[in-house]
């Protein structure tokens, strides 16, 4: 399932945006192209490729490539390597850009201009977009683009990416034919007679930039005092972590609270559509395929959409404002203890809604080993698909009473299941650090803490939309195919004449479940549970309705759990229930997650490894739980 490189505007001049991370490059890209963007992958690597289209005032249509942020043309991450490869014209399937726009943060010329000088040496036509000039002016930095242009020997225009009209000077430059022709490679920088000795030296670029800034009277260091003041609170050793915990708590509360209504609406709509279509079709296997397979499968995907949208909204808000790197800073010590860095925090946070967006978010981790470990432990974060199963079992087996006068026992059990997943993930990461050679290597943090900004609705909105589109496109297809496959397993062969049990018992899934029951017997699962685990492979929560089917309940949806609770409370031992809970903390029963891992790692090795280790972990946890519970008399 390797993604093809998409050339959706194969003709027309190509311009590329290049800049340091946090220079406002993506905001400028959003302003230039609006919603005319396409997100895909670069050939052969899982680096996000963003291409858009813009129309100049003269009516010319241009392709714009938003290259990953880079500090230099010496790559240290897969992202930065793509930027270099494209600029050097050696990226597979990519055209070398016709024009490079160096996006430069006007409040941080010292560092940003070094990259501009390095890009200029490549010999491509090149212009500088002096971004965030509004913020620079607020800090008393008055930069005259013409003078900087004379110093750099390339066109310079000032832009404000967060203002509606902020890109107009840049757009006007694109209509100037001179811009596209300018040969910059051989033009020495005026005023710097001494040629730059080592063309790749950071040091010499640094000297050149310092000279330029001195000539312009801009070499004073003006710190961003509001950011420093916020950081005194946010990074405070005691207040900082408390604030982070409160923010996370609030985000989770809101993700679950706000998502409830739309999720119920989606569930209701799915069953309405299913019933309407079911009534219109004759009672054949085709009806069952469409209603139980396709519609129920699509509903199973869509129902998580509200949570994912809300979670992404908050993550983007935190990301755009500049808080997320601070959160990573606060958690770095904890993550460093298990061999990861603070950067793994964001993918793991997303995994609480669903492991799939979390695994996709691991792309932002520069170090390949850290990225892989983060992907491997992401499924241990309790995703929301486990909640219906937890709710059923806790409701049926854990008494509703208060402990210590204020805490609810059922809530405590749920919390401990979440914690078990987190502790499990940390333990796995620690084990990988301790027992693999790569784990013992010291990997640097070196993470920028950008100045705080107000997030803009355009950037947050576009960000949420793009991530949701990717989720629906990638996951929708996979889940749908798997659901149909599992429907086939659960429906064929049909029960024989005069069969008394539920149909699923006689199907392939039923046979599989009965066979699995032998494997699961030592951890206390009966054959009904084992059968329910098979359709649960499509999405964990499907196990609840599958149990309903096995116990031959004629109800659907929400009612299943209510009708099922007393039934399993009477039929299962407490030890079995606890064992199943422990199973669900670790078990790899989500084929969509495994399919996503295959996509992101480009092979079957990692998903198979993941399934294997999670299965072993789940089996061990359930075994211990079951045996201990039996020994304590919970059988």
């Amino acid at each position: 399932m390797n993604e093809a490189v998409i050339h959706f505007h194969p003709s027309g001049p190509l311009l590329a945006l290049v800049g340091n991370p946090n220079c406002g490059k993506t905001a400028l890209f959003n302003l230039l192209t609006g919603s005319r963007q396409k997100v895909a992958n670069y050939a052969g690597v899982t680096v996000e490729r963003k291409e858009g289209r813009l129309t100049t005032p003269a009516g010319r249509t241009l392709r714009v490539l938003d290259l990953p942020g880079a500090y230099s043309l010496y790559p240290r991450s897969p992202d930065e390597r793509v930027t270099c490869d494209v600029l050097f014209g050696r990226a597979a399937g990519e055209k070398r850009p016709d024009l490079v726009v160096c996006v430069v943060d006007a409040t941080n010329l010292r560092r940003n201009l070094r990259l501009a000088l390095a890009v200029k040496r490549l010999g491509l036509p090149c212009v500088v977009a002096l971004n965030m000039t509004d913020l620079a002016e607020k800090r008393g930095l008055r930069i005259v683009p013409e003078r900087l242009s004379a110093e750099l020997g390339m066109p310079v225009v000032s832009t404000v990416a967060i203002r509606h009209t902020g890109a107009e000077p840049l757009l006007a430059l694109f209509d100037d034919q001179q811009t596209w022709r300018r040969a910059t490679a051989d033009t020495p920088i005026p005023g710097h007679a001494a040629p730059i000795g080592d063309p790749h030296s950071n040091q010499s670029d640094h000297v050149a930039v310092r000279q330029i800034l001195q000539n312009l009277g801009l070499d004073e260091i003006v710190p961003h005092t509001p950011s420093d003041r916020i950081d005194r609170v946010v990074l405070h050793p005691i207040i900082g972590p408390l604030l982070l915990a409160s923010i996370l708590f609030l985000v989770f509360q809101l993700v679950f609270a706000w998502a409830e209504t739309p999720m119920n609406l989606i569930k209701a709509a799915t069953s309405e559509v299913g019933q309407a279509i079911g009534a219109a079709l004759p009672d054949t296997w085709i009806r069952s395929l469409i209603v139980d397979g396709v519609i129920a499968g699509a509903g199973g995907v869509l129902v998580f959409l509200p949570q994912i949208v809300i979670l992404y909204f908050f993550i983007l808000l935190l990301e755009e404002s500049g808080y997320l790197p601070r959160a990573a800073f606060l958690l770095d010590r904890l993550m460093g203890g298990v061999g990861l860095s603070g950067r793994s925090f964001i993918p793991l946070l997303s995994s609480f809604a669903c492991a799939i967006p979390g695994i996709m978010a691991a792309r932002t981790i520069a170090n390949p080993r850290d990225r892989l470990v983060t992907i491997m432990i992401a499924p241990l974060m309790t995703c929301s698909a486990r909640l219906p199963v937890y709710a059923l079992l806790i409701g049926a087996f854990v008494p509703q009473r208060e402990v210590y006068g204020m805490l609810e026992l059922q809530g405590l059990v749920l919390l401990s299941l979440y914690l078990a997943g987190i502790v499990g993930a940390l333990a796995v990461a620690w084990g990988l650090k301790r027992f693999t050679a790569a784990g013992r290597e010291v990997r640097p943090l070196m993470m920028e803490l950008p100045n705080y900004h107000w997030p803009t609705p355009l950037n947050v909105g576009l960000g949420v939309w793009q991530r949701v589109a990717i989720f629906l496109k990638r996951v929708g297809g996979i889940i749908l195919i798997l659901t149909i496959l599992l429907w086939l397993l659960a429906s064929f062969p049909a029960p024989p004449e005069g069969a008394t049990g539920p149909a699923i018992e006689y199907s392939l899934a039923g046979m599989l479940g009965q066979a699995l029951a032998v494997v699961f017997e030592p951890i206390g699962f009966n054959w009904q549970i084992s059968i329910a685990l098979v359709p649960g492979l499509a999405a964990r929560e499907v196990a609840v309705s599958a149990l309903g089917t096995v116990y031959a309940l004629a109800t659907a949806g929400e009612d299943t759990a209510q009708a099922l609770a007393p039934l399993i409370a009477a039929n299962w031992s407490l030890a079995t229930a606890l064992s199943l809970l422990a199973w669900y903390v670790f078990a790899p029963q989500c084929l969509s997650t495994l399919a996503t891992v295959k996509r992101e790692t480009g092979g079957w090795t990692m998903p198979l490894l993941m399934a294997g280790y999670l299965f072993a972990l789940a089996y061990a946890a359930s075994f211990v739980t079951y045996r201990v519970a039996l020994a304590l008399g919970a059988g």
Partner: protein
Amino acid sequence: MTDVTDTSKACSVRTLDLASIGEALAVQYVQPPTAAPEWARWLEEIGFIVGERVMLMARGLPGGDPLVVRVAQSTFALRRAEAACIGVTPVDQTDTQEIVA
């Protein structure tokens, strides 16, 4: 990781991880650990270049790790081992010009 030798340098040179918070400093050298020579280039890329002004802004908890470091106009989070690669000397607070090494 702290095998950075600074015996050849002036005695006022310390490594950045040992600096006090808020002290105005300038980079004297960048010396990566032998196990990770690529750190030198990476640190230079983000601005730790000889002569550049740096300041320790905050320390994380627990154990004073990682560190928040201001280098010229930018702020970076560095682990202690990374900051230990950077030799610094104090500069006059009132002097806004960089010192040239």
